[in-house]
């Protein structure tokens, strides 16, 4: 019996060894930074180091950040931009997946897909560079076009009333193609017999879409909706950081950009970590509940 046990261990051992390099890297680069959240409760002095003797200040940093005049505006911007991105990022791809599904010409279908999801693979650096050029109020392509209709130059990236809208629209531009393909894959999985049955019952194409295709996609739509709950505080650092400027902080400054400026530009390590910790904490609750919900509703599990 004990011999059998040690034999099983010996067989299994290589698998545990395979996990070692990855576990060590995670320990260093994920779990040590997690303990680094204690910086939020210290008056952190970088000279003494991460595990040095720092002065503990309790919740002082949190009192400080909630006394900042712009904190709630930044939280509001984050929630507004992120939630509108989530909504548009679902509706637009679903509509396009339904439209593409009706296309009978295979070549046209493939070309359309290829074109619409190309921006997904480009970095926000390149896309931002393109946007800064074409959205320029003086001589940018978009304003030249609008000028032809007598519309005066709009500064999409420099005016507070346009900035959030521009962020959401360009986020859709980058990502809708990818998500369209995800939903198309779900549509392809629908049993063709359902359409035949609907056709026999005299359902028009529109009715087939409403009564067969959409219910067939319902599961993936609800699942992605539930999972996107965890992203409600992610307004998109890569995009906003490369497109915003001080004149649109009022409508465009988000938690992540504020954490960056406070922490790495103004060296307020502790206050910046405190903001980051609050965000991670709330996100943790949201992500955990979204996975829990997805599991309860659909038996969805990652591992």
């Amino acid at each position, binding site marked *: 019996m004990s011999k059998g046990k040690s034999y099983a261990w010996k067989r299994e051992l290589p*698998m545990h060894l*395979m*996990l070692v390099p990855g576990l060590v890297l*995670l320990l260093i680069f994920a779990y040590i930074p997690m303990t680094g959240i204690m910086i939020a409760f210290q008056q952190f002095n970088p000279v003494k180091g991460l595990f040095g003797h720092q002065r503990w200040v309790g919740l002082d940093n949190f009192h400080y950040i909630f006394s900042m005049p712009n904190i709630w505006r930044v939280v509001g911007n984050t929630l507004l931009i992120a939630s509108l991105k989530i909504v548009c990022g679902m509706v637009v791809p679903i509509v396009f997946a339904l439209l593409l599904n009706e296309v009978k010409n295979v070549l046209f279908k493939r070309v359309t897909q290829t074109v619409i999801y190309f921006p997904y693979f480009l970095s926000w650096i390149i896309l931002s560079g*393109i946007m800064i*050029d074409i959205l320029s109020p003086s001589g940018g392509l978009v304003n030249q076009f609008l000028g032809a209709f007598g519309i005066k130059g709009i500064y999409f990236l420099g005016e507070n009333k346009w900035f959030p809208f521009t962020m959401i629209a360009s986020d859709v531009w980058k990502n809708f193609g990818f998500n369209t393909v995800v939903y198309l894959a779900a549509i392809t999985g629908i049993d063709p017999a359902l359409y035949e049955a609907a056709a026999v019952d005299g359902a028009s194409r529109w009715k087939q879409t409403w009564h067969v295709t959409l219910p067939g996609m319902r599961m993936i739509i609800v699942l992605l909706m539930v999972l996107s709950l965890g992203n409600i505080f992610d307004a998109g*650092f890569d995009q906003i950081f490369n497109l915003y400027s001080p004149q649109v902080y009022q409508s465009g400054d988000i938690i992540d950009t504020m954490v960056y400026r406070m922490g790495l530009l103004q060296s307020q390590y502790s206050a910046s*970590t405190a903001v980051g910790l609050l965000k991670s904490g709330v996100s943790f609750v949201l992500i955990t509940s979204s996975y829990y919900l997805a599991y309860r509703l659909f038996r969805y599990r990652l*591992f």
Partner: protein
Amino acid sequence: MKMVNRSRNHWFSVVNTIILSLTCIICLIPFIHIVSLSFSDKAAVLGGLVKLWPVHFTWEPYSYVLERTAFWRSFGMTLERVVIGATINVLLVILLAYPLSKPNNKLRFRSVYVWIFFFTMLFNGGLIPNYILVKELHMLDTIWALVLPGAVSVFNIILMLNFFREVPHELEDAAFIDGAGHMRTLWQIYVPMSLPAIATITLFCIVGHWNAWFDGMIYMKGDHYPLQTYLQSIVIKFDFNTMSASEAQRLAKLNDRSVKAAQMIVAAIPILLVYPYLQKYFVAGIRLGSVKG
């Protein structure tokens, strides 16, 4: 009645084709415009004449970019991180996905391991602790700062372990009877049978490293910026510190917009080159991975 239905369907097809074609055109226009700018001469760009076709065609912006040392230096840095980074990523994904793809009764403590990996998807230390850690490990301004912190991609592990689960059990049992251990089974049975999946993940890692810019900005000094960070500094921050005097002189004869456009295009070409492969594996990847449904 049937006639009405058919003609209504016909109209729908026409309108649908128009909507989709227009969307494609709108998606393409920004790229066409940037390409046109990069091939147009200074007067045409300044005069606002360039729209969707180069005006007074010239190679000058490209020859200027290709002679810029800062551009090539950052290009080299990016190649280095892509090769080292993607290799480490993929090796780790294979090594980690294999044991984690086993059921709980085949691998002791599996659920503990799974939680260690899964928890990193739920919570992270945030920007400052990460930065201070890299600094205290003396990795600032070295390639390791770009490669090691993101070496373990839990998302890719999930993708890979779903592929490994498709490998028939009988093959593994046969290998064990022949005396092979887990290491040999992994490299001689699982890896060869999962090559399309490994190709997909490799491509994702390559694109990820190619497009990464933030780590380069916070961890590296100007001379060691990877390509996207370098682009960020000149296209978005208007930082011209990397420019030599002779380069500045040449730039005066060119239009800044054309030069920026040319650099963005050169940086996007590698993505264009792998795009057909990305596309090929992509749908298979999302079906098995993120949204199993």
